[in-house]
């Protein structure tokens, strides 16, 4: 093959032509997304359906969702390097790759979302430490650096680079330092996952989102950390399964996936329980303030079904499916549970941003619904395609799955 010198030893990859065509095909949506992004930068944000009632829309909801899904990286890292679950070394690489993609995507979307991207760095330079968004920006930026450092040894393990002594020993020492780096990552991650929850939770002018809490953090701060830990591994599993589907081979042993699924099941159950308590507590809070709870669910499409959907169908059900050994070990059911769990978290992030803004606060406010336009969709999905290309490149040229050779001998 044209690029066989770059492919890790002992594994089989598809032909370069096939690979190249797929990468080319993926460039079509990438191009559309890029055009949309350029429209936003060049002609300003009037290109979207965002408006003064919906200053936050699909982008922010997607950002929150992506970061929650990317939580698999920090949590798997935590389990692998801090808790030291050795088995997980077989999936932690891939979790890191997914993490890098998710965090790069989140920052990319933010760069389109803000009205003045060129002075976006003011968030660092003129930081207001009281703002949840500042905390988010600082931690995401720092954690992205951590992820890059975690990704670096993988990159260095490419066959051609690995031939050189300096990169090789650098990668080796990075592996040694990984527990420290992972610990820093966990520290940063906890804060920004939480702060993303805080972003909505501190809005005391928006009773739908507002939560009381602990010290400076609203309850949503802790719920967001927990939900990211709960669903992140599911997303890692899901992407692994998708990769296996396209690669037409097993890449990670069932036992490894099983560990992640089991932990995720436990955490999701805990999360759903706390979410229910939180919701009930919030019912009391708004009732006390004089607003009937039903008024928050009075405007379609944001009816009661949203709550049922989020907490029961996309919360409790996957939690139970993951918790139960029998269902967890049945692959189709496991995949279903992972899909439900991830969808639940994305829905939660949408609710906390878009629904929170849609519920009229002033009694004479008119309910306005918001639906993103193509520019928003194209830019939001852009990372998906870029991510797919990055995964294809990483999978093809880097030894990401340590068990691949063992599972697919030839």
């Amino acid at each position, binding site marked *: 093959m044209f690029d066989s010198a770059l492919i890790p030893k002992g594994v089989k990859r598809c032909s370069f032509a096939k690979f190249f065509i797929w990468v080319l095909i993926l460039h079509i949506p990438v191009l559309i997304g890029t055009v949309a992004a350029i429209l936003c930068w060049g002609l300003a944000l009037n290109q979207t359906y965002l408006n003064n009632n919906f200053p936050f829309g699909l982008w922010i909801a997607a950002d929150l969702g992506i970061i929650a899904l990317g939580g698999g990286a920090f949590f798997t890292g935590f389990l692998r390097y801090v808790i030291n679950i050795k088995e997980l070394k077989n999936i932690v690489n891939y979790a890191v790759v997914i993490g890098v993609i998710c965090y790069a995507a989140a920052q990319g979307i933010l760069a389109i979302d803000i009205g003045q991207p060129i002075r*976006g760095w003011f968030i660092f330079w003129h930081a207001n430490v009281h703002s949840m968004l500042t905390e988010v920006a600082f931690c995401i930026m720092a954690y992205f650096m951590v992820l890059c450092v975690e990704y670096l040894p993988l990159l260095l393990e490419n066959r051609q680079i690995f031939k050189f002594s300096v990169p090789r020993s650098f990668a080796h020492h990075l592996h040694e330092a990984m527990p420290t780096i992972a610990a820093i990552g966990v520290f940063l991650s906890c804060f920004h996952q939480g702060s993303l929850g805080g972003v909505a939770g501190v809005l005391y002018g928006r009773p739908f989102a507002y939560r009381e809490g602990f010290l400076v953090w609203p309850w949503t701060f802790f719920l967001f950390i927990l939900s990211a830990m709960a669903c992140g591994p599911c997303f890692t599993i899901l992407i692994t399964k998708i990769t296996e589907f396209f690669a037409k081979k097993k890449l990670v042993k069932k036992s490894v996936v099983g560990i992640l699924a089991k932990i995720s099941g436990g955490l999701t159950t805990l999360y759903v329980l706390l979410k229910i308590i939180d919701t009930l507590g919030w019912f009391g809070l708004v009732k006390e303030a004089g607003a009937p709870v039903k008024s928050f669910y009075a405007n379609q499409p944001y009816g009661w079904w949203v709550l049922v959907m989020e907490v029961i169908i996309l919360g409790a059900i996957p939690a139970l499916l993951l918790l139960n050994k029998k269902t967890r070990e049945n692959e189709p059911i496991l995949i279903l549970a992972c899909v439900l769990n991830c969808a639940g978290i994305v829905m939660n992030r949408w609710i906390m941003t878009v629904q929170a803004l849609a519920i009229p606060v002033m009694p004479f406010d008119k309910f306005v619904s918001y639906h993103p336009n193509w520019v928003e969709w194209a830019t939001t999905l852009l990372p998906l395609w870029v991510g797919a290309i990055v995964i294809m490149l990483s999978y093809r040229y880097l030894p990401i799955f340590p068990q691949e050779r063992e599972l697919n001998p030839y």
Partner: protein
Amino acid sequence: MKDAHHKGEGHQEGHGTVYKYGMVINLDKCTGCGACMVACMAENNIPFRKEDTNDRLTQNFWMRVYKISNGGSFPDNDICYLPRPCMHCEGHGHHNRTPCVTVCPAVATDYNHETGIVSQIYTRCFGCRYCMAACPYHVRVFNWWDPKWPEGMEEYLNPDVSPRMRGVVEKCSFCFHRLQRARNKAYSEDRREVHEDEYQTACTQACPAGAITFGDLTNPEHKVYELKKTPNAFRLLEVLGTNPKVYYTSSRAWVRKAADVYVGKEGSGVTHT
């Protein structure tokens, strides 16, 4: 200076007396004529567009007059106009902070403890719009477009207020530049105090009905001091604890009720017309 600025909360600091500028708007007198909106647009160089002329969701309004209805059927229907500038919330309780100010990641908006005015620095704002999400009154607007004036119309722009660039958030400033002007005048006359009539917002001045009263809420010599205490006075969404400095008065019970609860308390027919 920066310490004084933060510690000065509610105290006499240095030479300056602490003011709390605010408004009392008489909704019985307000006729919904819109002069306040136009005066505000002219005073503050607010841009306008050919298209979507009056679309409240995308167009720029600092002062917006809401038309509210009691929801009754003909002929028991009733309407009332409610002018809504920025509330310049003081915040209280354990928040003790203005909803939009705390969330701004870049300190582009600030609560001035000497005047009670919530400022907005357009050149600092980078357009994350978190403040808009934080404000329950829809006071803050985003510049979705590059502000453009038809040829020749730049002539009428007010040099006291800089036109904003696209991609930033802006809002009512209680015509802060007028306070600066009044202060300069007072200092030049060797006075520390700015008189009540020396500093009035553009909307207050324009209102043909005299429905808006503006002044220092803490100064017993200012008209607003007594007006805000009248039995029919209320504030918008008092229950949230945003502690706004804009008060309203109305002799109509349904109007008072419409402003003080979250969403349709008692399932009343309070609707938007």
